[in-house]
């Protein structure tokens, strides 16, 4: 039986909480090189997250949603994709979109309030960052459906949170996926909290994975802080979506059980609604030391390698910050660009009015309000 077809309340694990290979688990199908790359990306993500939070604190960036604790689920799931596959992120998948080729400086730019930060670079198969919860789910379904109609081999991986499962768009998006049997994988980053609302308040269902029952396809729960388990489950789901066996349905819902170590966003104070003990308990499952322990145990990395990675990662993040901060405020004309393919007359008039205002008052006056 495939790893996906187990009971939806059995959680898939490959590593123990301490980072040993579980006795009942096979070794990962990843080369040492890819494993190190995965590890490096997770380290990068963690460091990026720390720097981003501090940029916000220093007033150098707007509100930012941190991801620490969730790097394993993000990176390992994105690693499971083939070149041609697409991801549909929400606002917290900085590491997943990076893995798929989106540069860190663009992510920073986005949170610095530049539209340009949400224009996925040409060679990345990444949809735009979506802010309204769950609304990207039908998009992923639609794109997957289009890929099926065009008979390509693309699979669409859609990320969303535990809170998102309560929205109508979750339901409608997954239901369409089931009906039209589209090559999509629905990846729920269940980090236990939707801002201050705990998982138990979102739904009376005992698992989120079991919600797939309503749509006639598989749901599977995985330890989302075990990157090797996430990789394996996602890979199986992607392959099934691409190339289902007789009698298999293409879509799968994956519930990756994990924890957000930090605040919901830099505007949030989690101490108001949860206690530090809980955070500490989950930190014991931290995906980064866990993978590191495994890699050290296998002799794939050692102190030197880890140090080199750390230095490298610092440099990459520092460079990205420099690049992002070097980008000028967009020209005010950008307000009017890309509203339509062709600018309607009324927008032209409004743009001209704005130019007159700027000429008359200067940008400083207009911006000081």
């Amino acid at each position, binding site marked *: 039986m495939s790893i996906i077809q187990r009971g939806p309340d059995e959680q898939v694990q490959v590593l123990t909480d301490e980072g040993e290979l579980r006795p009942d688990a096979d070794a990962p199908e990843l080369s040492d090189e890819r494993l190190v790359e995965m590890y490096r990306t997770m380290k990068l993500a963690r460091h990026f997250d720390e720097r981003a939070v501090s940029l916000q604190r220093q007033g150098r960036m707007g509100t930012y949603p941190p991801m620490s604790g969730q790097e394993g689920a993000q990176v390992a799931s994105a690693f499971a994709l083939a070149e041609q596959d697409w991801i549909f992120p929400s606002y917290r998948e900085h590491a997943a979109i990076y893995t798929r080729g989106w540069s860190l400086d663009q992510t920073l730019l986005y949170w610095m309030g530049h*539209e*340009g930060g*949400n*224009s*996925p670079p*040409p060679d990345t198969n990444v*949809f*735009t960052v979506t802010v*309204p919860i769950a*609304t990207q*789910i*039908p*998009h*992923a*379904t*639609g*794109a*997957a*459906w*289009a*890929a099926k*109609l065009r008979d390509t081999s693309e699979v669409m991986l859609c990320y969303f949170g535990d809170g998102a499962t309560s929205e*109508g*768009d979750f339901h*409608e*998006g997954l*239901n*369409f996926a089931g*009906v039209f049997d589209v090559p999509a994988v629905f990846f729920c980053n269940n980090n236990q909290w939707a801002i201050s609302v705990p998982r138990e308040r979102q739904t009376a269902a005992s698992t989120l994975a079991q919600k797939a029952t309503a749509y006639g396809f598989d749901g599977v729960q995985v330890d989302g802080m075990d990157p090797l388990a996430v990789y394996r489950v996602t890979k199986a789901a992607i392959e099934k979506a691409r190339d289902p066996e007789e009698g298999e349905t293409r879509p799968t819902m994956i519930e990756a059980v994990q924890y957000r170590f930090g605040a919901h966003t830099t505007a949030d104070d989690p101490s108001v609604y949860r206690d530090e003990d809980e955070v500490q308990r989950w930190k014991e499952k931290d995906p980064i030391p866990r993978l590191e322990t495994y890699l050290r145990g296998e002799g794939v990395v050692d102190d030197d390698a880890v140090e080199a990675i750390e230095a490298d990662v610092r440099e990459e993040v520092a460079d990205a910050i420099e690049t992002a901060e070097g980008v000028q405020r967009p020209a005010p004309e950008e307000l009017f*660009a*890309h*509203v*339509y*393919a062709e600018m*309607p*007359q*009324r*927008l032209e008039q409004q743009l001209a009015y704005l130019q007159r205002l700027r000429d008359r008052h200067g940008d400083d006056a207009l911006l000081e309000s």
Partner: protein
Amino acid sequence: MSTDTASQRLTLVQAVRDGLYGELERDDDVLVMGEDVAENGGVFRATQGLHEAFGDDRVIDTPLSESGIVGSAIGMAAYGLRPVPEIQFMGFIPPAFDQLTSHAARLRNRSRGRYTCPMVVRAPYGGGIRAPELHSESKEMWFVHEPGLKVVVPSTPHDAKGLLASAIRDPDPVVFLEPKLIYRAFRESVPDERYTVPLGEAAVRREGADVTLITWGAMTRPAIEAAEAVADEVDVEVLDLRTLSPLDFETVRTSFEKTGRALVVQEAPRTGGLGSEIVATLQEESLLYQEAPIEQVAGFDTPFPLYALEDYYLPESDRIEDGIRAVATYEI
């Protein structure tokens, strides 16, 4: 309307179907989807025969799920297809309101042009057919007020086909509202071949020197009737906007600057309707030409009633004639 090519006398709904047929034939990326659009041919028969002609992959019955329909169409459009989702009645667009306003309208802007949303959401709209609750709404302003969307309302069979073709070929999302009161009200010669009527251009349906009457959709007919009825007294110029967003203010202004008097006729509730935008713009840009208050004959600020009272709700020609006379005879 061309006379030397083959044509047929079609109703508006037949012309819509004809337009869909032509675009499905022209471009493999076009597909029609929605509730009851395939085998059933749509509850108004606007998609009749399309499923038979183009098959399961091009004409698709979906679950009863408006947000799912529009949301997945957005995904398809971003992927590169040109979906034409139908929402069964305008009153059932609200479940898809979030997908339309937060996504369809913004995808191009949000991604700085990397992703676009060439999609046409069709919906029958307006009252007058003795329908149940929420089957008679005219809420074009939901979308006219939304940057990034286009809004089109045909008032004749010929335009319906040509505007629909333009909407489908347009690179941006279009809400295409079909006045169902006139779905079968009259026939007009419609060329068999494909053609387009450009978006963003109002039509002068009747030339006149005294009063500019601005309307669109199902109200165009009673407006022309009323103009004819008062022709002895007042020479009315009747404009049919056709595209509500982006709006052809040029044509409206030109006519108003000629007549100095204007009346807007709309089915939607008065407060916050398109009429008020037009009036506000005219007085702002052309006050010096204005010879009388610009009046509106509009729907009331009440829910659209069940059918026993709908004829009291809808502007009809007496009401429009009164409006024309009030505007024409006003003296400062």
